[in-house]
């Protein structure tokens, strides 16, 4: 029964486990996905964050450096024009009135400085003495009066005059640069600022970034897209241009995100162009500045997608290798549960955990089916025994019980007859034999009475019994048999035993049975003494122990327990009821009866009976 309970519990456990099958797969997928995504996203997040900061810092630095360098180039460009112009103030003929020779020299100036469109010499009173031009007629001594013009008035001795940027024809940016010579004459150059385009267009700011120059009023004077300049574009509304006005120095921190003239978001850096009031801007579209980051994010997104795909593929394999076999196993388990056919076996191919699980499952089924078989045969046996014990076994039992006193009576009658048939009949012995016959007859009668009481379900005749008396009575009873079998009996009794509460006749039957079994067991012994030891002892905590030891062949270990079964017998003539009944009786008294092998040979039967009130039987 216990085994069956265990088995069914196991099956239900397995079934419970398999009931999660619908969640097993999503769990795997979820775990894989989470692991993949968390790993990738956290790595990517860190990388993106740090790259963003690194990139921003380096871009700011680079752009600012570019701005500084470009500003330097433009300042240099303007400086070179001023240097060329200063040459005119140092020329020896500057002191004298201009002539044909000076005209040629001034024309060479135009040849050498392409950015200068017109070049004029004003005398100390502000009157034009010489003018050469790329677009109009060259002239000597025009005497045009420029004495009120800033290009004459504001030109100091050691400091060049730089006019605000003006747009010739409303389109081309120009500025005037004047230098005063020692003699007070002034050289005036009109500079076409379109030539700065060469400088700004050479500055590469990424792919779509650009460098441009804005004058002090916020007007665009140089830009890679010259058309913006020619349109006379006013950039003073741009946030970065306004910022540059307040912080003209332009620190690396001044780099910021702003909108450019096309409305794009740009990373902008600026610096002032000394000594002019111009500002150099270097701008890179934000999209482009962070393009590597976008591609990084894109790569990571692709990686995450790949990871998800891998997780999905892993799930497919997982399903193939784990979930599907588990599902098959579950289906099989439920089939077994429904059909109760324990001869079914799971098919398995692999040697992995699933395969081993299938093997274990099959083995479990084998044991289950064996257990079922055993169980059914035991049940059959039990039913048989129960029938026999209730009917025939009782008859056999009665016969056996009666047979003992009858045998004793027959033996004593024989003894009595032998004593009488002696030449000198020993009346006393005969008397004793008759007395024993009488006792045995009473005992037989008590057996009958006892059996009748069982059938009547009469209450146990419990009485205080001294087990030593019972032992001695039995030994006396079998005295003849002992002699017949040449058995030496040796009682070893504890004189201070408490009395037990028992049915005296039944106890006598048990001891007699044990003693007779011992005697009969020693019947075949030829090579050693046939010794019967009967002992009584106190059995702690509250019992009395009687042991019956023989020097017979002993019982083989297998039969040790079975000897107490009904109809088990090692004797050819035995019915196999003796020990079975003995144990029934002892257990009815709340005691125990068992056998152990003796040393070197033989068997010891142990009989424990409880003392006093605990001796109340359950029969």
């Amino acid at each position, binding site marked *: 029964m216990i085994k069956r309970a265990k088995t069914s519990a196991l099956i239900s456990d397995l079934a419970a486990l398999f009931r999660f099958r619908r969640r097993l797969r999503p769990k795997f997928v979820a775990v894989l996905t989470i692991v993949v995504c968390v790993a990738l996203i956290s790595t990517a997040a860190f990388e993106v964050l740090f790259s963003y900061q690194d990139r921003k810092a380096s871009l700011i630095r680079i752009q600012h450096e570019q701005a500084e360098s470009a500003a330097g180039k433009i300042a240099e460009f303007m400086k070179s024009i001023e240097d060329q112009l200063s040459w005119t103030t140092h020329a020896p003929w500057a002191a004298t009135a201009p002539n044909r020779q000076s005209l040629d020299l001034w024309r060479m100036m135009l040849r050498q400085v392409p950015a200068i469109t017109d070049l004029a010499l004003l005398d100390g009173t502000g009157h034009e003495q010489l003018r050469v031009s790329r677009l109009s*007629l060259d002239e000597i001594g025009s005497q045009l009066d420029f004495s009120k013009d800033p290009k004459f008035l504001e030109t100091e001795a050691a400091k060049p005059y730089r006019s605000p940027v003006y*747009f010739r024809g409303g389109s081309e940016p120009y500025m005037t640069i004047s230098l005063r010579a020692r003699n007070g004459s002034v050289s005036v150059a009109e500079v076409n600022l379109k030539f700065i385009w060469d400088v700004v267009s050479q500055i590469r700011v990424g792919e779509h970034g650009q460098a441009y120059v804005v004058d002090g009023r916020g007007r665009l004077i140089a830009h890679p897209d010259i058309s913006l300049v020619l349109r006379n574009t006013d950039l003073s509304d741009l946030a970065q241009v306004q910022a540059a006005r307040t912080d003209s120095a332009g620190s690396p921190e001044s780099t910021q*995100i702003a909108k450019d003239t096309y409305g794009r978001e740009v990373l902008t850096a600026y610096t002032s162009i000394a000594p002019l009031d111009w500002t150099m801007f270097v701008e890179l579209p934000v999209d482009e500045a962070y393009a590597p980051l*976008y591609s990084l994010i894109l790569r990571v997104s692709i990686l995450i997608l790949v990871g998800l795909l891998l997780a999905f593929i892993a799930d497919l394999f997982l399903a193939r290798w784990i979930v599907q076999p588990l599902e098959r196993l579950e289906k099989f388990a439920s089939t077994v549960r429904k059909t109760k056919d324990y001869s079914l076996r799971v098919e398995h191919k692999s040697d992995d955990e699933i395969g081993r699980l299938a093997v274990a499952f099959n083995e479990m089924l084998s044991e289950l089916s064996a257990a079922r078989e055993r169980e059914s045969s035991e049940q059959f046996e039990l039913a048989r025994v129960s029938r026999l014990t209730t009917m025939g076994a009782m008859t056999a039992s009665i016969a056996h019980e009666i047979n003992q006193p009858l045998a004793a009576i027959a033996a004593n009658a024989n003894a009595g007859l032998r004593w009488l048939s002696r030449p000198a009949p020993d009346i006393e012995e005969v008397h004793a034999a008759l007395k024993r016959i009488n006792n045995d007859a009473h005992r037989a009668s008590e057996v009958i009475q006892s059996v009748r009481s069982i059938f009547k379900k009469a209450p146990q005749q419990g009485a205080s019994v001294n087990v030593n008396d019972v032992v001695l009575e039995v030994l006396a009873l079998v005295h003849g048999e002992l002699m017949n079998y040449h058995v030496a009996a040796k009682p070893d009794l504890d004189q201070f035993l408490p009395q037990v509460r028992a049915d005296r006749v039944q106890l006598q039957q048990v001891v007699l049975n044990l003693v007779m079994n011992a005697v009969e067991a020693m019947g075949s012994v030829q090579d050693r003494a046939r010794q019967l030891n009967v002992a009584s002892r106190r059995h702690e905590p509250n019992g009395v122990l009687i042991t019956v030891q023989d020097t017979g062949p002993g019982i083989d270990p297998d039969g040790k327990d079975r000897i107490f079964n009904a109809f088990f017998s090692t004797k050819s003539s035995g019915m196999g009821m003796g020990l079975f009944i003995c144990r029934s009786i002892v257990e009815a008294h709340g005691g125990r009866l068992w056998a152990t092998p003796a040393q070197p040979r033989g068997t010891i039967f142990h009989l424990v009976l409880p003392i006093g009130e605990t001796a109340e039987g359950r029969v």
Partner: protein
Amino acid sequence: MRRRDIVTLLSGVLASGAGLAWPAPARAQQGAPAVAFFHSGSAQVNAGIAEAFRQGLREAGYTENKNLKIEFLWAEDHTDRLEAMAAELVRRQVAVIAANSVSAVAAKAATATIPIVFQSGIDPVVSGLVASLGHPGGNTTGVSFFASTLEVKKLELLHELMPAAAVIAVLVNPNNPQEENQANEVQAAASMLRRPLMILKAGSERDIDAAFAALVQQGAKGVVVIGDPFFNSRRTQLIALAARYATPAIYSNRENVDEGGLISYGASLPEAYREVGIYTGRILKGAKPADLPVLQPTKFEMIVNLRTAKALGLELPSALLDRADKVIE
């Protein structure tokens, strides 16, 4: 990281993602835009500027017969045909019209919607092509050549070479809308230089022959050939006549000097047509002519042909040779 940065980042990711997913397909010739190259001269003489125009378009990302069709319309110096040709162009609805000055004026008269990119030797504001150089305003923009103001410089240069009292002739095209302005400016400059001047008009091949015969007959010692599309077309004839009559001549275009003319002063015409090509490309990409300012040349070259000078028996002053951007020996 500020929120705006993140938004920018994300939009950038989306943009780059979209770019990755849908790469721009190379535009097939089928359905490629068509532009017109509309010129008053002939293909033969103007092969150089046509090629410069193609070059500009290539720089702007357009290659002929690959992603662009170019229809060339040459009036072969028949300026009376320009009007009809312009109407035909408008009827064909080309995407952009690239034109030289007189053709541009004809095209401008024919359409106010089709973008026109000009190379103009005449003042585009005066001729009504644009409202102003910085803000053209309409459907027209291009490269202005300053040519009319440069005539003064050409006279000045020739003046340097001539003996003090020699008469200088000026050859003008009466069909040029600004012929009068040109003549007046040169006349004014001649007065300042105290140089006797003779103005000759030539509107046809025969006129040119006649003009040269006349200037020699009337004792002119040199000739200023005014910058004009017709004279550009007739450069071979002009060079030959100048040689035949042993007359020093100054031109606007260096091509004339390369082919045997004595001297030229002016901006590069092919360079101007390259710019016209670039502007045409920008307009094809969506720029509005009204927003594209009129470009002006910044480099003016003086080219001198010493061989021609020698043939003419002319001693060129070293000061002039020093200033020359190129001396052909």
